[in-house]
């Protein structure tokens, strides 16, 4: 797993940062862990919802949490003790963050190739982080962080300043949301990177190089 191009361990070098995981109820395990939930987490869960529902869970509240026992290398081997607090039938409409009481070892139900799903989740996380970085750089791109989604209040600026970039974001999100094959989706997004704005390929290469 560590050889995967987009792999990160999923914990922060700052031990005071909270750590979150996305838990899949059918598989009864975590598919990904990461620290930057506030900025990325809801978007990542929404992108992945085209495949399955996910419950966001704060992991560092578990009394036995340590990044030595759960990271993206082995997150599928863990579940939590307070599963009763999860209502899988509600996750499509609301997914409040659940605080883990205790991490419990589990053997995931191999209904699907979990390693591939973990890679897909990491791949999506990478692109969401890249888009967010670019959005922050392009100050007018604050709209991407707008959780309300459909507010058009920033559109008055976008078409003038970054019309191509905005299209890049929209198309990338669609590719991630509907994509199934990682290699094909990656190629389609890289094509967008190379054909959208002159600044994007360099930014992408720099971001990827520094990602891990």
């Amino acid at each position, binding site marked *: 797993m560590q050889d995967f191009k987009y792999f990160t361990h999923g914990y922060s070098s700052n031990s005071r940062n909270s750590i979150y995981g996305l838990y899949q*109820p059918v598989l009864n395990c975590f598919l990904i862990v990461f620290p930057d939930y506030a900025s990325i987490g809801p978007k990542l869960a929404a992108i992945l919802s085209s495949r*399955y529902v996910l419950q966001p869970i704060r992991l560092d509240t578990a009394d036995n949490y340590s990044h030595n026992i759960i990271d993206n290398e082995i997150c599928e081997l863990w579940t939590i003790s307070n599963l009763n607090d999860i209502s899988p039938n509600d*996750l*499509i409409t609301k997914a409040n963050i659940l605080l883990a009481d205790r991490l419990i070892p589990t053997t995931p*139900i191999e*209904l699907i190739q979990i390693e591939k799903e973990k890679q897909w989740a990491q791949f999506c996380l990478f692109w969401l982080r890249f888009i967010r970085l670019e959005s922050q750089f392009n100050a007018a791109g604050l709209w991407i962080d707008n959780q309300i989604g459909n507010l058009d209040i920033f559109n008055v600026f976008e078409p003038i300043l970054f019309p191509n970039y905005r299209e890049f974001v929209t198309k990338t999100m669609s590719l991630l949301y509907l994509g199934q094959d990682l290699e094909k989706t990656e190629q389609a997004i890289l094509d967008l990177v190379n054909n959208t704005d002159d600044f994007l390929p360099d930014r992408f290469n720099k971001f990827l190089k520094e990602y891990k």
Partner: protein
Amino acid sequence: MNQQKILQIHSSKLTHEKILPFLKNGWSQYNWQNISDTNKIAESTNMLMGRFGDNVFPFRTDAIDSCNIKPPAYDSSFTKTFADITDEQCQQWLKEKTDRPWLIFWSGGIDSTVIVASILKNSTAAERENIYVACNRASIYELPRFFYNHVQPNFKLIPTPDSCKQPLDELYHVIDGEFADQLYSSGIGWELLRLCPDSLTSDFRRDPDLLLNQLASRTNKNFATWYYEHILDNINSSNLPIETYHDFYWWLFFNYHYTDVYLRLREKAVANKYSPRWFATNEYQQWAMNNNQIGTKYTLNLGDSKLASKQYIYDFDHDEYCRVFKIKSKSRLLFYKLKLDKEFCTLDDFSKLYVDCDLERILELLPDYIKS
């Protein structure tokens, strides 16, 4: 003016302080607190009017008789599969129901997706010219790949109407996924699956403790015992093979929740009198009565609820994610924006009466068999 009649009383309202003094007293059959608490078993649904077996609660089955929603007599020799029934029904309806266009309410949930898959499997492009699909953004979020690969390219789409002045079924054959929950065990049993994976296949007569605990967790121990014994009496009188925890929960929905769903649908403005009910046919009900074994309707995996329906969709679109991960969601609530009214009762003209504004009329119509 004809004398109106109460078809169904909302159980949670029976203990209302303005109603309770007028009800018969008694500990077992007329335990109004327990009867009211039946409402807590499955998200504010009425589960008091059984279609099958002895009537163990103090309500007559006027709604079942007047709405003609009795189940077919159990036939243990019935062998058709879910896929057989679905395909045959679709082919038959395509031949028969040609007087008006069809309007399929697609919520993106499993049940309405079975209908859309069946139409795509069994119809010609020319037949689909006369079929519309009503959906909204929530439907697409529920099953985006199915929408983009199958719904959008093949049907004319209209946004889901929240309400309309003219009932849509005067213009269309309005078809939705209602009554499919009643073929399966809906969501209640799946809570047990997480707590105790093997429990769904346990014999509820021989080993009822976990079942009683789950019922008690929604109310209290006294209620759990009272309810279990009443339902057991009803099940024993039905002569159907109902043996496991799964079967018990299925029975609640198949036998008791059915009437509530029927009356709820009558209250929706979109589809009243004429709409055919895809999953309410005798053949589907016969299938439901004959296929409670593990591996057909369910397995012990959370993702395998409504297994036969999901397998039907998978055989059509080969989407492994839908097959493995799609679980029952509250798509209907997102889709219809149903108002969950807290009426006291529904009358035989499907109007409702409310304690706060219709008390006098309610007391006048309260049936003698529950009035003190």
